[in-house]
């Protein structure tokens, strides 16, 4: 009987220890952001203050970087969804002989590390006269997010019964209208999943804008927060923590929101739904 009890409690003990280890580094950001004189070590603030947040948010340069970040990430998410849905349609509905190699190359591209192509991309941007261009950066980010987007959207579109559009065609709708009015509304959960995932990846991306954008006025939030860390990181802990929290917030909110659509579980990004 004793052994049985042990077997039941040990997992709880191990999990609790792992949980505490995971929680500790995070707690510092939370506490320090509300602390008037935050230190590197984790301390419970003697007096809670919002001064760190207000001072970060009253900086016009910071606000601008958030707006630019939103522009890049929202633009990318929107483009990936639109271009992705259009591309997913023939892949889902028609049988063509190139479909198989195309889908394999899409799957192949989803897993390639983007880091590996950044040096030639920089050179390409100089060649195309796109360096320091936010739109150019957005287009590159779109291309890097497209393989995943097309793959997921094709799978979501497969789940929409074709009979529904067929009846729309009978009523005189064009293919394009059928996609817009019948298919797309029925795959809203899938579209939201792809959009949220694309946005989060882009919002957290530091390397791409850091390489492709040179003018400080055009830096998105991920780059300004790095600069802030470089300049004040070892002095103004409270502000750095507050900046980090504001910067992390969109990702957290969207993750919680996406949970509503991902109820089917996490089977390798849905890619296993053949």
């Amino acid at each position, binding site marked *: 009987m004793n052994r049985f009890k042990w077997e039941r409690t040990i997992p709880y003990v191990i999990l609790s220890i792992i949980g505490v280890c995971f929680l500790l580094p995070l707690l*510092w950001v939370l506490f320090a952001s509300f602390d008037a004189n935050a230190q*590197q070590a984790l301390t419970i603030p003697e007096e809670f203050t919002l001064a760190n947040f207000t001072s970060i948010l009253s900086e016009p340069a910071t606000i601008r970087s958030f707006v630019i970040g939103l522009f890049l990430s929202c633009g990318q998410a929107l483009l990936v969804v639109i271009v992705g849905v259009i591309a997913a349609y023939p892949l889902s*509905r028609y049988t*063509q002989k190139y479909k198989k190699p195309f889908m394999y190359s899409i799957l192949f591209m989803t897993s390639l590390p983007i880091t590996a192509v950044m040096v030639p991309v920089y050179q390409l941007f100089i060649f195309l006269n796109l360096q320091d261009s936010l739109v150019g950066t957005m287009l590159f980010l779109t291309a890097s997010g497209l393989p995943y987007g097309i793959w997921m959207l094709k799978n979501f579109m497969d789940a929409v019964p074709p009979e529904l559009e067929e009846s729309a*065609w009978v009523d005189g709708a064009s293919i394009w209208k059928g996609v817009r009015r019948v298919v797309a509304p029925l795959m809203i959960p899938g579209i939201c999943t792809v959009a949220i995932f694309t946005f989060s990846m882009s919002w957290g991306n530091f390397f791409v804008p850091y390489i492709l954008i040179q003018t400080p006025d055009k830096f998105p939030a991920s780059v300004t927060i790095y600069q802030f860390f470089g300049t004040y990181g070892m002095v103004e802990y409270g502000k750095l923590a507050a900046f980090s929290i504001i910067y992390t917030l969109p990702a957290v909110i969207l993750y919680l929101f996406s949970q509503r659509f991902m109820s089917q579980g996490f089977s390798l990004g849905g890619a296993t739904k053949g």
Partner: protein
Amino acid sequence: MRADVQTQRNQIGSSSIGKKKKDPTALRSVLFLLPSWILLLIFFIGPILLTFYFSFTNLALTGTQAQNIEFVGFQNFVSMFEDPTFRISVMKTIVFLFLSAIVGQQILGFLLAILMKEKNPTFRRLIGIIVIAGWVTPEIVVAFCWVAFLNDNGTLNMILNAIGLESITWLYTFPMISVCIANIWHGTAFSMMVFQASLDDVPKTIEEAATIDGASRLQVLIRIILPMVKGSIVTNMILVTLQTLGVFTLIFTMTGGGPGTSTQTLPIFMYNQAFVNYQLGYGTAISLVLLVIGIIASLFYIRSMKVKI
């Protein structure tokens, strides 16, 4: 059967649209795929091909070489393999991959998933949220958290002092361990969720039958559960390796590749050569190494997925 339905549907589609061409779907497919193809060709496939091309040139960011690109054959690769820093970088990358991706994220992720199985739902949810919080946090904020946590006056040293141990300058004394732990913290949730999903697919009746036949918990795990989730372990391992191979921001922010070259993995080395030393050709040759490793791993990934397209 499925193909039959599909052809039938295509016929319905084309007759209702009333086009008399041989195969209206072919033209439509091309049109629909065109925008994605253009974007992918310019910004994805183009750079990959350029990587191969630039690796064989003396491309530089400034000076006369920036104007006249010359073909230099294997010179970049010769100097790369003769460069002791390159060899160090390859070793650092392997250590980083092994410790943080294969050992850290995989094993910790699996441990979490298996321990959380059939536990109190509230407790399971709480631990899940804590672990996933590290995954949702952007890489750069992860780096800040860990710099603060491991710093000389940071939380970890505070804890060590409290239990009567000496402070350790973690980021200088154990830089590689530090970045590995930060990467494990950031990435484990992904593996955990993958394993949770695949463990849920293991039928409970098989486990029960084995237990009735007298198998111990460990035996059930090794003989029954592990073989059944083998596929997702392999796939997850490749995927996590690919993700870790591209890690730049975390190391760049935490240590900048240092002290010295002690955390200079290939992405950091590539960045330093291309954008700090302005040797784009050499930088591209290094990125080609990354790319080739990535391509090989991706091919294994596709094979392991066993998808029906």
